[in-house]
């Protein structure tokens, strides 16, 4: 006991110096204007002897500005799509096995497959024995149809995977986007939380993150004359002056001469219109009834013609085979580039080049070799981006030339965006925004200023009160309190927590609570002194007797703080973290630090204690 203050004082000094050292990067960080903080200017400013420059205090989204998004993954839709795919598979499988059946369609709101058949038992046994039984079971037969449903475990697993993949995709997209310090987390209920500090354009964020980015390759069905009768029904696009924009209201027909694989050429009918909705309406009313949806679909693409205003875009159709031959799932890499080819009208256009994975390359090779000299449409999110002839076998490398008609800068940006989403992969299911919090850039600094002033006022009052009420011992408590504040900030900088607005409130509150421990100690010492004990004994007994009281009271608040940390997100979590660190620091400063100082100042027999 006699000499122990020696070590304790050394410890206190060490902790103080350590805290100050930890705060060096933060000091330089906040000295810079906000826009320079993420630049190299900051890295350069931090001296070499300081901790790593990444270890600085961070401002939360609410203080810095930025976007917080929660996106719900629509797993039900993903399940429905899976069921629909399964219905197609089943139909194909039954056909290949020669099992008699009429149709295989989805039922029960798209959650089950119903196979209409006269031989229900045969269908059932064929399917369930053929490996489909691993994932599916048959709940029964009704109205001449056998129904099949996925097992619950399979569905749960599938849904979990869908969310996981959505998270990965979103993370990929954000990473490639270059936002500094994004935070992406999976939450309960198929939610994904995304935090983009310092990001200012919520619309762009939502657009980029919500895009499904489904890339599909389909083969053009140019031999099919199904649309030719429309030439008699619709207005031709070409007037006396040829093909000119704006096109006639409501859309029109035109043709293009396409070389067929057998060497002949055919004039293929296509529909065009000034806007996509116009064209969609035309397709719906006139073209769709002529087609067998099992065999053909109509793809819509964008093209442009020279006009007075540079180039004017219009929309056109492609008659395609319904089957999706290949999807973007196999894309390994994608990048934006400028078309260097000498082909007329293509030169200088932005394009997206992509590289397939080995497996994708194999499939692509098969597809292209089977369809040599046909046209292949590359569709992104339901829009035909490009439909070139397959000149030779393609394996791993491909490209998408973007439509024209807009300013090149804008288009190059779009090429970049497409490259990014292709590289990051498609979302397995649509996402909806369930939570969005945007904080503008001007609000943050003002809140920081207000919060700092509020914290300083609170701190000042507490310091004055202790000094006034406990005199000498109050001063000791004040020193401990200052060290407590320093320590909290240092730990926060060290473990990289973010300071939020409620976090500032939490910081102030912990200072108020930290002083409670000193009040308890000082009151106890007064009591012991009143009982006639010597200073040394009073100090010792005072500290010993309140030790567990202080621990107990800290632990109960700590319990609440930890529960809150588990519950809250964003700013509220910041509060809980600050409170937790504050409580731990407060236990140290009130028990160890003040005791060391008190024992140091009263080490001589003649010492006085003002409490």
């Amino acid at each position, binding site marked *: 006991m006699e000499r122990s203050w020696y070590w304790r004082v050394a410890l206190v000094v060490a902790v103080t110096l350590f805290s100050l050292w930890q705060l060096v990067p933060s000091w330089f960080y906040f000295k810079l204007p906000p826009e320079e903080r993420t630049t190299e200017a900051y890295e350069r400013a931090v001296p070499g002897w300081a901790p790593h420059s990444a270890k600085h205090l961070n401002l939360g989204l609410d203080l810095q500005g930025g976007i917080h998004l929660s996106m719900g993954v629509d797993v039900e839709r993903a399940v429905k799509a899976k069921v629909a795919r399964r219905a197609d598979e089943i139909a194909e499988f039954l056909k290949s096995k020669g099992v008699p059946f009429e149709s295989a369609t989805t039922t029960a709101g798209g959650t089950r497959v119903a196979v209409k058949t006269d031989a229900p038992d045969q269908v059932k046994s064929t399917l369930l024995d053929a490996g489909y039984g691993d994932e599916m079971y048959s709940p029964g037969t009704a109205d001449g149809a056998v129904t099949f449903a996925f097992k619950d475990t399979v569905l749960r697993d599938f849904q979990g995977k869908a969310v996981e993949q959505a998270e990965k995709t979103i993370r990929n997209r954000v990473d490639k986007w270059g936002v500094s310090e994004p935070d992406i987390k999976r939450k309960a209920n198929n939610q994904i939380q995304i935090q983009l500090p310092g990001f200012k354009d919520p619309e762009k964020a939502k657009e980029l993150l919500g895009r499904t980015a489904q890339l599909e390759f389909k083969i053009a069905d140019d031999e099919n004359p199904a649309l030719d009768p429309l030439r008699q029904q619709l207005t031709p696009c070409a007037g006396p002056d040829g093909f000119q924009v704006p096109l006639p209201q409501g859309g029109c027909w035109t043709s293009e001469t396409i070389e067929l694989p057998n060497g002949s050429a055919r004039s293929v009918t296509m529909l065009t219109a000034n806007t996509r909705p116009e064209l969609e309406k035309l397709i719906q009313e006139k073209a769709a009834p002529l087609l067998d949806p099992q065999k053909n679909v109509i793809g819509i693409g964008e093209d442009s013609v020279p006009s007075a205003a540079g180039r004017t875009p219009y929309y056109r159709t492609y008659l395609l085979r319904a089957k999706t031959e290949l999807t973007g799932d196999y894309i390994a890499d994608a990048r934006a580039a400028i078309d260097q080819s000498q082909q007329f009208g293509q030169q200088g256009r932005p394009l997206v080049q992509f590289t397939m994975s080995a497996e994708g390359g194999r499939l692509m090779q098969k597809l292209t070799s089977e369809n040599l000299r046909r046209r292949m449409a590359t569709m992104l999110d339901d829009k035909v981006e490009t439909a070139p002839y397959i000149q030779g076998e393609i394996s791993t490398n491909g490209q998408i030339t973007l439509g024209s008609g807009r300013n090149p800068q804008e288009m190059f940006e779009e090429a970049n965006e497409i490259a990014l989403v292709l590289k990051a992969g498609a979302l397995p299911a649509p996402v909806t925004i369930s939570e969005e919090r945007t904080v503008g850039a001007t609000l943050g600094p003002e809140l920081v200023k207000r919060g700092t002033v509020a914290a300083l006022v609170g701190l000042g009052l507490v310091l004055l009160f202790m000094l006034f009420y406990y005199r000498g011992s109050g001063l000791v408590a004040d020193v401990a309190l200052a060290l407590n504040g320093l320590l909290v900030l240092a730990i926060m900088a060290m473990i990289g927590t973010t300071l939020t607005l409620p976090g500032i409130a939490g910081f102030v509150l912990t200072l108020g609570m930290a002083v409670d421990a000193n009040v308890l100690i000082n009151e106890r010492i007064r009591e012991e002194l009143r009982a006639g004990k010597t200073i040394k004994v009073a100090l010792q007994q005072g500290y010993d007797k309140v030790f567990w009281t202080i621990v*107990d009271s800290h632990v109960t608040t700590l319990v609440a703080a930890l529960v809150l940390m588990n519950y809250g997100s964003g700013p*509220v979590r910041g509060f809980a973290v600050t409170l937790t660190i504050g409580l731990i620091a407060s236990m140290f400063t009130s028990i160890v630090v003040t005791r060391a100082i008190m024992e140091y100042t009263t080490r001589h027999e003649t010492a006085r204690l003002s409490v």
Partner: protein
Amino acid sequence: MRFKSFDIVPHGTKIDFVGKRRIAVVLSLIVNAAILLWCVPAIHGLNFGVDFAGGTEMEVKFAKPVDPGAIRNGIEDLGFKGASVQTYGAEEEHTFLIRVERIALMSDEDVKRVVDAVQARFPVESWSFNPEIGDKIDFQFKQPPAPQELQAAVEGAGIGVREVRAEQGLAAGTRSFAVITQGIGEKIERDLSTRFAEAKPEVRRVEYVGPAVGRELRNQGVKAVLYAMALIVVYIGLRFDFRFSPGVIIALLHDAIVTLGYFAFTGREFNLTSIAVVLTIVGYSVNDTVVIYDRVRENQAKYKGRPLADIVNLSINETLGRTFLTSFATALSLVGLLVYGVGTLFDFAAAMLVGIISGTYSTWYIAAPMTIWFEDLAAKKKARAATAAAAPSAPAGRAAQK
């Protein structure tokens, strides 16, 4: 040795806390019941913020004074019902908090109206609406319509549309459409910037919380408070004696409810930060109780044989100064927030203050005296168990009245 100090509570103060416990308990019961009743939605209800109610909230700052009524009218012209516009912070900052449609959920009626309108114009194959998502209807069509026309059809039914999104259809080669309503924030922002162009509105913060998330946060919030209470009670039970636990539980509930009362009676927004306050109060208000229980334990060893009521009263009186001072010191730290804090920050400090005061009161009048009451109950039970063998041994208590 020079002993010069003053005590805010003079040494040797004897206030009869234990004797007043019946009045205090009745008073507290009335206050608590009143708060809980007030929180019942049918009677008054808490003013849930977007965190819990769902909806859109935006903070807009103008460069010039603007009439909040004009803002509200503008929003209602856009077709959003139940908008609230309130001044945020100081008058001269011209800042307003705009909140739209507490319950952002589309009602079944709304859904039916939209579906009917769409069905009347397009061949709908199937549609689905998930009330958990609440603002999105999926349509599958036999022949896909143009998105713009679909949007026009939905808006014709009187429902604002944020986006009509064409999606990959369920079956290969088909397309389906998601009609997403809401999008209030963007719409209002656009409208304000044209309507009040000369006052240069600046949207400083937008918060949109979907109804499902809101409900989830609300449920989790209640759970978090209950978990924290349970854990604290277990800790106190282990550290002291489980016969102290009921007093702690009751005091905790009391303080949590009174803190809630701040939000209930002032009508201030109850949001995530409010949950943080309630939880912190739950953790903090035990501190005083712990101090007294510690002293009770110490005094029980010191004055063996004295009735518990005496010991409890003595313990409260002995620790009166520190109970007051600790609460006072913590309250002092909040003054800055009360003066400089706006909105949530101010509410944080004010509710915390209410909780701290309640915590101090409940320590003196509820938690400590409760232990006597439970001790009495236990003693009576024991006496009854011992049947009418002898006259029941006088239980602890009664001696509080000097």
